[in-house]
């Protein structure tokens, strides 16, 4: 019995196979856990420890370092409003305050209906449309209180379901296939190629 659903377990194993060492798959696996459950559960951490050859404490320690991983349940939509320098200069703080009022929850909190979790973020690298808002790590180009309220309305009514998947789903494009290059296999090939190039260089030099 694994905590990951069968299809996700399959993807987890594929992810591990993309790296020379299993532990490297830690962050992708934590994202995967979040895709399944919306946050990183204790059971998921135990399974990731097993997949990456680490201890559950190390998985927790690593997960807790990164802002995107939530170790407690969050809303279906995690709304992030940037207040860093460019957004500050464009009214980010006011937009955050407005968001808090609209959603009826404090920064870091979750709305009463469990749909929204509000966060104050650091710079989201989209400063030309400041203040920047992200929902589940999708840029939603929402810079004014009015646009924000419209966004919340759209989200509530499922009008953005295509653009904004539930929290945790990060990359919807799957990698097609695993690694194709086996470094061991390559050694001979490389030596040949080098010899060929050198031979060519010698003739060119003449």
């Amino acid at each position, binding site marked *: 019995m694994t905590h990951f659903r069968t299809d996700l377990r399959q993807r987890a194993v594929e992810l591990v196979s*993309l*790296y*020379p*060492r*299993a*532990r*490297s*798959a*830690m*962050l*992708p696996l*934590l*994202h995967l856990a979040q895709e399944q459950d919306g946050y990183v559960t204790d059971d998921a951490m135990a399974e990731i420890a097993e997949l990456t050859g*680490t201890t559950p404490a190390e998985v927790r*320690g*690593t997960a807790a*370092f*990164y*802002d*995107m*991983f939530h170790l407690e349940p969050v809303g279906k939509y995690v709304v992030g409003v940037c*207040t*860093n*320098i*460019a957004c*500050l*200069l464009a009214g980010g703080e006011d937009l955050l305050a407005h968001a808090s009022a609209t959603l009826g929850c404090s920064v870091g909190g979750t709305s009463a209906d469990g749909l929204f979790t509000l966060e104050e*973020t*650091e*710079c989201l*690298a*989209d*400063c*030309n449309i*400041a203040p920047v808002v*992200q929902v*589940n*790590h*999708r*840029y939603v180009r929402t810079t004014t209180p009015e646009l924000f309220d419209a966004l919340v309305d759209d989200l509530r009514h499922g009008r953005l379901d295509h653009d904004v998947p539930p929290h945790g789903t*990060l*990359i*919807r*494009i*799957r*990698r*097609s*296939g695993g*690694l*194709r*290059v086996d*470094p061991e296999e*390559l050694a001979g*090939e*490389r030596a*040949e*190629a080098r010899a*060929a*190039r050198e031979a060519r*260089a010698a003739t060119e030099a003449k």
Partner: protein
Amino acid sequence: MAFLDSPKIVSSRAKFADSHTLARYLETGGYEGLRKALTMFPEQVAAEVDAASLLGRGGAGFPAGRKWSMLRKSPVSYLVVNGDESEPATFKDHYLVERDPHQLVEGVIIAAYALQVTQAFIYLRGEFALGLERVQQAINEAYEHGALGRKIFGSSFSLDLVVHPGAGAYICGEETALIEALEGKRGFPRIKPPFFPAVTGLYGEPTVVNNVETMSNMPWIVLNGGAAFAALGGGRSAGTRLFALSGRVRNPGVFEIEMVKNTFRDLIYDPQLGGGVIDDRAIKAIIPGGVSAPWFGPELLDLPLGQDEVAEKGSMLGSGSIVVMDETTCVVRATWRIIKFFSRESCGQCTPCREGSGWLERIMYRLEHGGGRIEDVDLLLDLCDNIAPGLTWPPQQTTICVLGPSMPSSINAAISMFRDDFYAHVQHGGCPHD
């Protein structure tokens, strides 16, 4: 007047709505650079990059060719692309990964060929969900197209490329922290020495780390030659560069312009670029190269956008992001927000950075929100001095990485330029702008 005649090297496809697709890419000369590179010796490709004098675009401005050649002696094991872009007000790599992912992928393959590595990673900031999907799509297509995998375009060169999502931590942009994150750990920067991942990098093996924009220049350099690139710009600052302009300007955005030939004023005021300050107000200060950089006053607006030119005036071009603050801006609030950022993003290893950032943030908060004391201003400077002794530029360090010593820049700049604003906050019992 801004000088805008230079070629668009990395942003040439900006005019197309489908710039991220393989079809458009192939139509506009895509993968030609790679095909050409594969006909050359790896050393020749590296030599072209060396000849281009391409300075790394990640912030430190280290010449890419030199970085690669440091490794000639021992073969490189891995190539890692730094797409963590989290420096506040920097958004050029974000632009590149979303708008031209194939250009990045092609650049990486060319660099991998020059370095003769067989596995490369693109570490992308986790918040770039769309960018992650586009780069993954581009990688899938590149495999399909024969540009990745076994025997690329029928040559004897083979490469695997993996995109690795970050998860929200600014420090992972620091190259050794990035490697730790890629190894599945907390993003704690590694202690130096060894000074370069080139010596001990991913899994302890020689590794080249380069920025997304640095990589995106490769196809053009190979197609047009290093000399053509070096002919652009001036002095050590060759080529064009993406500048991310934000803050109190009419037309914020990412602009590719030639280095040195343009000034800060050109970038901010040219109608085709920044278009001037909102409401035509006066500029109070600019941040010339990311929030780690000391600020400039309006008197330096005519300084050319060149690495050495900015360094000579005691700051840096860094990540190429320029933030404009005008006369409506409260510099105390701006400084507080920058310090709050550093305090949130300190990885927490080093005492001066971990504890210093929190302490500075709390003092700045009091000054801005009420409760500030006159002596706080000098206390701030003294604490900064304990983090970056002497408050010089470039900073001296009491810490493992330069995040710690970066935070005094804005406090020191704001206090030296606008000390009276701080005192006004004390007298007013909070922010007079509120």
